[in-house]
Structure formats: structure tokens, C-alpha cells
């Protein structure tokens, strides 16, 4: 590690720098501490009505981590998302994805079919700054609880709707009743078409492939939370609320933005590219003796350095400049990639990493080597990630104790010097906070607290 530090922090090694950055070091040393620190959104009330859909509850989690009071309302039988969990595995009746996103929330039950609870919902909406719902477009409206009606009760309300095709447009109307999932969203928004092996590999490996986590779901959640925060900021300044509409079927394309521009200018879709890269070669993960390592060479001098280190200088002739290595000649690129595969297989990650660093140090001092700096890192599984000292030092994994679930480990990020994001508790009991929230917001029910 020391050798890497030498390679990558040259500005900090200059004389006098240590003194110059000491004030900043002070700030950094306080970043993991939560003691006595306020929360950015502690005056915000969020009503989360997400149903059978993680994006809504993830979005409300983000706001809850910043201090908003998030009231998750679900029907008495519970949100079906509770049991949407890998291979059906539950902990005390709750799936792990749901547990992971049940941070800092209040859980109450509201029965849409009861007039009393519809009134309760209106009362909460009158007080809320943000409402998040994931039902079919028009469903809340037909119950008299849509944006159209609630804005009369609360003109400052930010009403966030998440659905596959959105709450407007002809298709939105035609497909209003169709549900969505992370997987269908990955497919429709252009992600699956780009993942998978090359066209000449056997089926099903050449087929479109899903990203192995909720890539569309989390993107949709960030879209909802950022949209809500922009709208809530406008409300702080003008008092006016508005409607925020998120279409999950465009999640991936909305996030990375490239598909429509590429489709329009090139007039042909990109093929699936296996472990190759559309931008650059070599740029990817390769199998080494003890795992998979990244080999990334951005600039010509970085590539030349890698060739020297791996003893493949004879290749230089054909791949001299960056323009050679960003070609769309797939056969040519495959050739280079295979060369890299072959040579990387002889080494362990440690060996490659040390060779790269040692070369970089020499290169930084030599004008002939032109500062070549090939980059590597090792692919880690979640278990290996959790073992890294680095994340321990950063308190990246919160450990929360719960009377029913025991110790629960949750990834958390968002280090802000004054108002850090944080996990305060987890709560996942159906109706567990009925009493508290009903009392606090003056809700009424004949048999209060019963779910």
C-alpha cells in the first residue's frame, strides 16, 4: 500500500503541504462522528405509500437517512415487497431487501377501503412535504387521493409518482395497469441489450443479460429522491408544491443517457460486447491466478507501460496510438484482448499490482518513460468487500441492534461534515408505529392500533 501511496499522491508529498492541509485533516477526522450533529431534513415529513415496489421505499430511505420523518403506510396485510427476497429467504418473516430499506422509518397501516383511513391519509397528506406512491397511474386519483385532490388539501405538497410509463402520455394511459419490476425495467430501458457475451458465443450466453442487482430499481429511487428534493427546494422558496413523475421503464437510459444519441447518430444498435469495452482496449477485468483483475490503460504511455511490464512489446507496432485502441474493428480488438488474457493468467493480483506500481514510480522520474501509469484492482465479492479495513475505517457498514432481528448490517454512505446521513434504527413490524403516528398527527380509528 505504501508504494501505491507514493505513486498516487504526489501533490501531497511536496514540502509544506502537510501544514497546509492540516485544517482539512481536522475536518476529515470528524466525518465519521454523529455526536450532536443535526440532520439536513429534520423538518421534513414524507409519506411513503410504495406498494410491491422497492423504488419508492428506497427513495424514502434516502430521505429518512437525512432526517426526514418517513411514514410508511401499508395495507393491514402488509406490503408484498416484504417477501420479495432472494430465493424466498426471510428473517423473522421479512425479506432481506425489505429489511435493508426499513431504516429510520415509521410503519403504519391504512386500509384503502375504509372511509376512515382515507380521511386519515388526507390528514397526513395535509401535513406532509413529500408523498411517494407507486400504484397504477390514476388509481389514487380515482379514490379521491391523487395529486389533483391532495393539492387542494395541501398546496405545498410534492407528490412523487413512480410507475413504468409515467402518469402522462398515450402509452402511460394505455399501459397504466401494467406493473413493473426491476428486471422488466432493465430490459426496456436499454440495459439488458448491452450485457451478455459476443454474438458468436453459444446460447443463452449471447442473450441479453440482466445486471445482477436492482440497477433499474435504485436508479428509479435516486430519480424520485432527487426530483423530490428539487421540488421541495422550490417549495421552501415559494410555498408551492408540484407533481414529480418517474417512468421506471426508462431508468437505465435516463441514468447514463447514451442510448438515444447513439441510436440516432449511428443508426444501428450496439451489439453485446462480452467483456470488451465500447470505448477502449484493454479496459476490463481479466482472469489471473487468484481471481480477476482490472487492466485499464487510458493514455498511450499507460498502454506502453503495460506492454513493457508484461513483456509484450512486439504488440506495440499495431496499437501505437489511442485511436488504434478505440476502434470498432471487433476482430482486431478481440485479438488484443486475448493477448492480455493470456499474459494476465500467469500472475497473481499481488504480482501485477506490485509490477504496475514499481514501474509507475520509475516512470514518474523518467522523461523517457513518459509517466506511464497502468491501473489495476481486484474484483471483490460482497464478503471480501466487508472484510476490507478501508470500509471499517469509514464506518461504511452500520450495525444496528434490533430486538427481533438481532444485529443487522447495512451499508450506508453520505459523509457530510454538518449533517451526515445515518441509520438510527430499523423497524419493519406491520403497524408497529400506529399508536405513535396516530397520536402525533391526530388520526382516528375506532379500534386504533389494530391492524
Amino acid at each position, binding site marked *: 500500500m505504501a508504494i501505491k501511496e507514493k505513486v498516487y499522491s504526489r501533490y501531497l508529498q511536496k514540502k509544506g503541504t502537510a501544514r497546509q492541509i492540516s485544517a482539512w485533516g481536522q475536518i476529515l477526522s470528524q466525518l465519521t462522528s454523529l455526536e450532536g450533529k443535526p440532520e439536513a*431534513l429534520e423538518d421534513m415529513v414524507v409519506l411513503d405509500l410504495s406498494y410491491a415496489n422497492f423504488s419508492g421505499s428506497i427513495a424514502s430511505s434516502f430521505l429518512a437517512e437525512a432526517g426526514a420523518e418517513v411514514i410508511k403506510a401499508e395495507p393491514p396485510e402488509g406490503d408484498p415487497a416484504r417477501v420479495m427476497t432472494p430465493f424466498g429467504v426471510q428473517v423473522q418473516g421479512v425479506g432481506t431487501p425489505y429489511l435493508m430499506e426499513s431504516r429510520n422509518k415509521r410503519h403504519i397501516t391504512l386500509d384503502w377501503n375504509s372511509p376512515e383511513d382515507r380521511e386519515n391519509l388526507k390528514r397526513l397528506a395535509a401535513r406532509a412535504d413529500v408523498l411517494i406512491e407507486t400504484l397504477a397511474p390514476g388509481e389514487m386519483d380515482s379514490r379521491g387521493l391523487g395529486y389533483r385532490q391532495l393539492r387542494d388539501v395541501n398546496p405545498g405538497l410534492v407528490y412523487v409518482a413512480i410507475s413504468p410509463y409515467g402518469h402522462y402520455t398515450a402509452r402511460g394511459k394505455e399501459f397504466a395497469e401494467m406493473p413493473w419490476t426491476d*428486471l422488466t425495467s432493465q430490459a426496456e430501458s436499454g440495459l439488458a441489450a448491452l450485457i451478455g457475451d459476443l454474438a458468436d458465443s453459444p446460447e443463452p450466453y449471447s442473450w441479453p443479460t440482466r445486471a445482477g*442487482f436492482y440497477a433499474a430499481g435504485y436508479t428509479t429511487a435516486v430519480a424520485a429522491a*432527487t426530483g423530490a428534493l*428539487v421540488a421541495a427546494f422550490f417549495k421552501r422558496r415559494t410555498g408551492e408544491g408540484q407533481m414529480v413523475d418517474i417512468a421506471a421503464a426508462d431508468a437505465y437510459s435516463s441514468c447514463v443517457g*447514451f442510448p438515444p444519441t447513439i441510436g440516432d447518430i449511428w443508426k444501428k444498435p450496439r451489439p453485446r460486447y462480452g467483456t470488451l469495452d465500447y470505448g477502449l482496449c484493454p479496459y476490463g477485468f481479466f482472469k489471473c491466478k487468484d481471481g480477476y483483475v482490472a487492466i485499464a490503460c487510458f493514455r498511450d504511455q499507460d498502454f506502453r507501460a503495460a506492454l513493457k511490464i508484461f513483456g509484450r512489446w512486439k504488440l506495440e507496432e499495431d496499437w501505437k496510438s489511442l485511436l488504434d485502441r478505440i476502434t470498432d474493428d471487433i476482430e482486431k480488438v478481440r485479438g488484443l484482448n486475448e493477448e492480455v488474457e493470456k499474459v494476465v493468467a500467469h500472475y497473481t493480483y499481488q504480482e501485477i499490482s506490485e509490477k504496475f506500481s514499481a514501474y509507475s514510480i520509475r516512470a514518474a522520474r523518467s522523461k523517457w518513460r513518459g509517466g506511464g501509469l497502468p491501473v489495476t484492482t481486484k474484483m471483490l465479492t460482497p464478503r471480501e468487500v466487508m472484510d476490507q479495513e478501508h470500509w471499517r475505517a469509514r464506518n461504511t457498514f452500520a450495525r444496528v441492534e434490533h430486538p427481533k432481528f438481532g444485529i443487522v448490517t447495512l451499508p450506508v454512505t*453520505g459523509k457530510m461534515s454538518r449533517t451526515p446521513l445515518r441509520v438510527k434504527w430499523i423497524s419493519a413490524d406491520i403497524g408497529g408505529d400506529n399508536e405513535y403516528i396516530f397520536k402525533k398527527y391526530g388520526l382516528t380509528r375506532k379500534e386504533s392500533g389494530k391492524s
Partner: protein
Amino acid sequence: MADDYFSFTGKLFDQKEISRKPEALKGIRVLDLSHMIFGPTAARFLAQYGAEVIKVEVPYQGDYWRGSTYWGKYWKHANPLWHFINHSKCFAAIDVKKPRGKELILKLAEMSDVVIENFTSGTVEAWGIGYSQVSKFNPRIIYASLSTYGQFGPMRFLPGWDLLAQGTSGVLSLTGHPETDKFFKVPDFFGDFFPGYFASMMILMALHYRERTGEGQYLDVCQAEILMRSLFHFTHLQMTGKELGRTGNLDPTMAPSGIFKTKDGKFVALAVATDGQFQSLCQAMDRSALAVDLRFRKATDRLKEENARDLNGIVQNWVSSRTASELIALGRRHRFAASEVMDDVQISQDPWRRERGNVVTHEDEMYKTMVLQGPLSMLSKTPGRIKWLTRPLGYHNRYLLKKMLGLKEAEIRRLEKERVVGYWDYRVGQRPPVYYDIDRDPIFHYSSPEETPAGERTR
């Protein structure tokens, strides 16, 4: 559904009205010192909703991404993909390593609400433009340092970007088929873009706090942590002791779930989240026995690995006897989720995306017509928008230095001569398109009302 609901929402989100509507972040000024994708995306998100964003680059070099297009395919002497990352910003080129350049950047920081940077941890502090220096004269500043490993911790100085962040966060280890030795990355720098929006979310939270208290703050935005935040796999591992690894096209939280090949050789993703949706699917398949099968009736049983795989086999058989459009129609009628796998061309031409404003045809003064992706979230009163595409390196120098900092023409010429500020060189991605007459551009040659026009300048 009330019949008139969609006419109500259609008016709320009318695309033709967008340019006449207010902007939520108007009056917020962002100094964007970042490069590549992660940082610039955070700044561009804020620009899209009304913030004034000043992107500062290194003279005669510029952001590396200016020149890095896919497959070396350029468009009008620019990287077509760079427009989406940096549209609606102002482009200054100032050399921070020259004392006068540092001074100019500090002045801009003094007049800003937000600073965004993504250099190696500590670099901006060593240059004298970090949070500890800026906050001395601008305590209201929200200063966001973005990096792959964060600003502190033993790995803080390691380089990183999308590919490395996907590898080091565990994301990469989850995509692909379990029986192969290939791990696929999520393409198109998802590991930069997604954390970029997360960064803007943190900045918005800080803006909310400042609005209430007047206090600025420092943000350590860690790319790999943000990717880790989007994995339930850590919690799952800790609670069950099991790593999920790669599961191919099966989403282990849904059954059935997969991307299946249809009768007409297309690909359709199909996934069932709830018991109700499963009943609908069985109806559509005309398999009433499946609907009551105890292995499948309840999600808890259906999701068990063996049952989920059996069910996927049954669904694949059914899907191969139907065309893609039949399947989508059935999904719509019976209410289960089914989507065709869409590619770049389909997305660029999709009428739904055009009508929604997710895909926009933008008319630009310099680059003329371009099709690009619209905003991430649609807001009815303060919609996001594309104001202009990117501009050549240093394009707004004169405009910013005169208008914001009150510099005179003679002073700017001296700065140019000393290469404190600068412009493009011959390289593609930095310069204006050849057909564009830059010498007659009033912004590039901006002269303040009190001075006589600068006339034709030679670089």
C-alpha cells in the same frame, strides 16, 4: 380510473410549456472543477434544474472525456456522448497551477454556492483551493469532494472510476452466468452516472440545510460506497451467511423471472412480484393447474430456488410459442410485467419517450439538431431542461471574467499571453465544429456594455 385523469396530467406536464416555466435552482451557482463523468454528472443535474454551473478545465488540455468517444466515432469534431454529460454549463479554462489562475478560481469560489471536485484525495487542498481555504472567506459554501474510495481511509489515494468502482464494491461479481468464467460490467459508465446523481442528492440535502440555517458544509462523496449502498447483498450475507453470486437472468427476488426468447426470435423480460400477478400470468398462459400448485401459489414457496427454476422452465416453453408483441399485449391485459429488450435505435425512435420528454430533439446554436436524453425526473412546475449543448474549451472565458469578475479586455489579454487562461488546441473534442464561425460569436468575444467591441481576435 377517472377518464379525465390523463388530460389533467397531460396539461401538467405539457412539453410545449417547459421553457416558460420557472427553475427551482435559479440563483444557485456551482463551480464545477471536476472531470470525466462522476463529478460532471452531479453538476449537470443541478444545471438542468436551473443552477448556473461554471465548469473549469485545464487550458489547452481540457477534460479527458472531450476526446474519448466510443469506437473513435466523432460527430461535428466533438464527442457526441459528451453533450449529455455537460450540457447547459459555462466553460472556462483556467490554470490552477499559476498563482493568478488560483486567484481567479478562488474568486469564483467566493461567489459560488457549491463547489464540486473529483481529484485525488487532498489534491485541491495542496493547490490551495480546497474546503479549508474556501470556507474561510465563504462559510456558506457547500464543497463536495468526489472520489472512488472517499477522502479518508487507508485506500483514499487509489485512483478510480467506473470500472474500478464496480470491481471494488462487489457490483461486478454479481453479473453474468454462474457456470462461466466471465463477469460482465454494467456498461456505459453506470458506476459513474449513478453515484453522480447520488452526489447531487447529497448536495441538495446540504442546500436544504443551508436554506434553514445559513450554514455550508463539506461533503465526502464516495463512489464505491454509493454502489455498495445499492446492494442488498451485504445484509443478505450477514443475515443468512450466503453469497448470492451470479444468477444469470434469474432475479432471485422474483419468480418466475428472466429474459426469454420468443417465437419471433426477440427477447422479452418477464417477472412476477406478487401472488396476484402470478395468478394473472397463469390466466394468460391458460394454466389453471399452475395457479393452485402448492409449489408456486405463494411467493415464499415460488421463490425457493428449485421451484423458481422449474417455473422459469415452464415459462420459457410458453414464451417460445408466442411472439413478443403477443406477450406484451397479454401482460397489459392480464396485468403482469413484461417488456421487450430495447436497443439503442429503438430507444432513440420510441414515440413514448419523445412524447414524455425522456428523449429530446434539441436545437442548438452551435451544433444544430441533436437527439439526446432528457431529465431524470419530470417536474410539473419546475421542469428540467437542456439549455444548450457543450461548448469548446474556454468558450465562456471572456464572458465570465468580464461579467462576473469585472476584468477588462487588456487584463484578459495579459492572462491569455501568460497562459493563465486558455482555449482549445488542434485536438478533436476541444475545438468548435469547422462550419462554425467562432470569430463572429458574441459570447466567445463578449464585450461588456461599457467597452467598445473587442473586434476580431487572433489566438
